[in-house]
């Protein structure tokens, strides 16, 4: 039995996905990247293989993606996370009747990708250099409100009043703004809602640059955050599709590509 793996060496987390010959997902694994990209990536891969009871050799083709892709020399090939993300979303999206627009909010960047009906990237946009409106923004917020990331979701819905306006787009200024709001006696809930909305609106602006078509596929770590999803939904005014493992779509895409490449090579060898 042949397996294929994709590893997404991201800024905050390392995601690994393994698929079988059919291209169905066999397993996924996520760990924090920490400082030692390379070591952690290897560990992540191995832990997943162990979990699935596979050996390194069973993985016939491995494609790396994400910021660290160049560093991960074990990979057979590397690919930009945008393409990987597109493929992953396209494959995963089939279950939901296909998607054309993808919004990905990552650790320190956010992307909007538009794909055609064959899964090719038509157009895409990324946020500017700074981390505004990215996962990192949520981290910071959570830290200031001394909550952990998972709690943000519930809090979003606890607010009775309209979400507050978080004007600062820059993470650093937003931090101080939040503190200010707390000092003014505002409740955590509306602050959090405000944060979600500010991220959502930013992201939607990004998405509009590439053009939005029917369903929107939303992935990346922050997609686990119900509150943010709600805010984004509200801002978009469209159906959102959230995959089972939002974080690993990109890795999954890489794995699928790995499989395809392998098949292609096989066939080309046959010929």
């Amino acid at each position, binding site marked *: 039995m042949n397996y294929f793996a994709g590893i997404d060496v991201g800024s905050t987390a390392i995601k690994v996905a393994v698929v079988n010959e059919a291209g169905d997902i066999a397993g996924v694994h996520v760990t924090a990247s920490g400082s030692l990209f390379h070591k952690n990536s290897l560990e992540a891969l191995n832990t997943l293989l162990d979990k699935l009871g596979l050996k390194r050799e069973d993985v016939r083709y491995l494609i790396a993606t994400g*910021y660290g892709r160049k560093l991960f020399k074990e990979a057979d090939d590397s690919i*930009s996370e*945008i*393409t990987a993300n597109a493929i992953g979303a396209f494959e995963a999206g089939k279950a939901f009747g296909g998607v054309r627009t993808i919004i990905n909010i990552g650790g320190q960047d956010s992307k909007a990708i538009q794909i055609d009906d*064959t899964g*090719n990237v038509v157009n*895409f946009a*990324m946020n500017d250099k700074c981390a505004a409106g990215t996962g990192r923004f949520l981290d910071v917020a959570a830290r200031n409100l001394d909550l952990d990331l998972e709690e943000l979701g519930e809090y979003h819905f606890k607010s009775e009043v309209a979400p507050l306006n978080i004007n600062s787009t820059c993470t650093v200024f937003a931090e101080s703004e939040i503190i200010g709001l707390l000092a003014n006696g505002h409740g955590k809930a509306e602050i959090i809602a405000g944060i979600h909305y500010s991220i959502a609106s930013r992201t939607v602006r990004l998405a509009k640059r590439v053009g939005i078509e029917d369903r929107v596929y939303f992935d990346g770590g922050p997609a686990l955050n119900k509150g943010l999803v709600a805010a984004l939904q509200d801002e978009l005014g469209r159906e959102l599709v959230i995959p089972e493992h939002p974080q690993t779509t990109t890795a999954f895409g890489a794995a699928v590509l790995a499989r395809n490449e392998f098949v292609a090579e096989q066939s080309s060898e046959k010929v």
Partner: protein
Amino acid sequence: MTNETSKVIPIQSIPYSRSRQAGESQDVLDHIIDDFHDNPESMQYFYDLFRSVYCHGEEVKHEGMLVGTTCIQAPEELIYAFGATPMRLCNGSYHYDQKGAEFMPSKSCSLVKATLGMLNSDNVIPKIGKPDMIVNPTTCDQKKKSSSMMGDMGYKVYDLEFPNVKESEASRQYWQRSVRQFATELRQLTGRKLTKKGLQAAFNKTGRAQAAFRKLHSYRLLSPSIILGKDIFLVTNAYFFDDITRWTEKVEALNVELEARKQAGFKAVQSKAPRVLFTGSPPIFPNLKLPLLIEEAGGVVVADESCSANRMLYDMTAVDEWMVNDMVDSLADKYLKPCTCPIFTKNEDRKRRLLDLVKSFNADGVVYQAFSGCQVYEMEYRSVAEAFNQAGIPMLYVETDYSPDDKGQLSTRIEAFLESMKNRKKQKQRAAG
């Protein structure tokens, strides 16, 4: 009773070759030379030229008076005709960009910042010496406003009045007139006469150079490419300051080598490598960031529409009557009518030119660089994008500057762009075969 550890550290001047500025150029040049395989031998001249000028800060020689130009709109034939030497001052180094930022709005375009930063610094690299005059065509706002700044720096600046509308006959006449005024200005500066002989000689110099460039240009039509874009940009950048005759000879030599490569069926890139048309703000050494990123990622820049290469050398002058007055007017026309600079009110010519380039060089996609702060390019982006959209040509719009810190993100975007182009190609082939 003083403490030994406390002492005044005297100012110590380190040689330029060991300065951070030199380092910047050093890195780029090494990257250009070492990280790519089988560069043409004839490129060695240009590598050495840039190394000596940018890395070792060696002096750049010139004949007669030195006339700096801040834009390709300044008719260099006239300058040559008066026995002076034109030198293009547009600069591409991040170091000078930062120097410029010290006294210019941070939002202004890197190119202008760098140029003024260079002029303002005490050691000007390339080491051309103080220009006897700087010709400043009144093209984009930032260059217009640089005029007085350069004046304050103690340079003799001549504002070459340039119209904003290209189509109208009135502006054509206006421009012809200001070119004639420029000629008289040069006459006063050099104390020379503008003779038919001199002008013909000047036309010869540039004409030969342009012919050489056009030949070079024609080799880029070949697919798979036999020469990489980064080398072309290096060659055209050299035209800024190199002695024109020598430059021409070297380019002709390069052409000979390319002809040989062509015969040998040589490939500079994989045959599947996406062919990219580069347009927008000009890549100027050492800021070849974008072209280099494209070609690292396995693409190849097959053509460009930028004032540091194609736009500068492509268009040739036609003269009906080889008399001084008609030659000068022809020059004026040549420097106005074919120009596709976005400073003009209309975008049509540039769009048409781009589409034509994509077609004739069968490029798979377009990379549009706009220096943040260059409103004209930023504004024109939309309509250009629209045009490409209708033509079904993918385009990547990159807003950037001289700073290297967005390299990581850019590489991702460019790779993704190239990957998508590859997929398109595959599909096309599948559809075809």
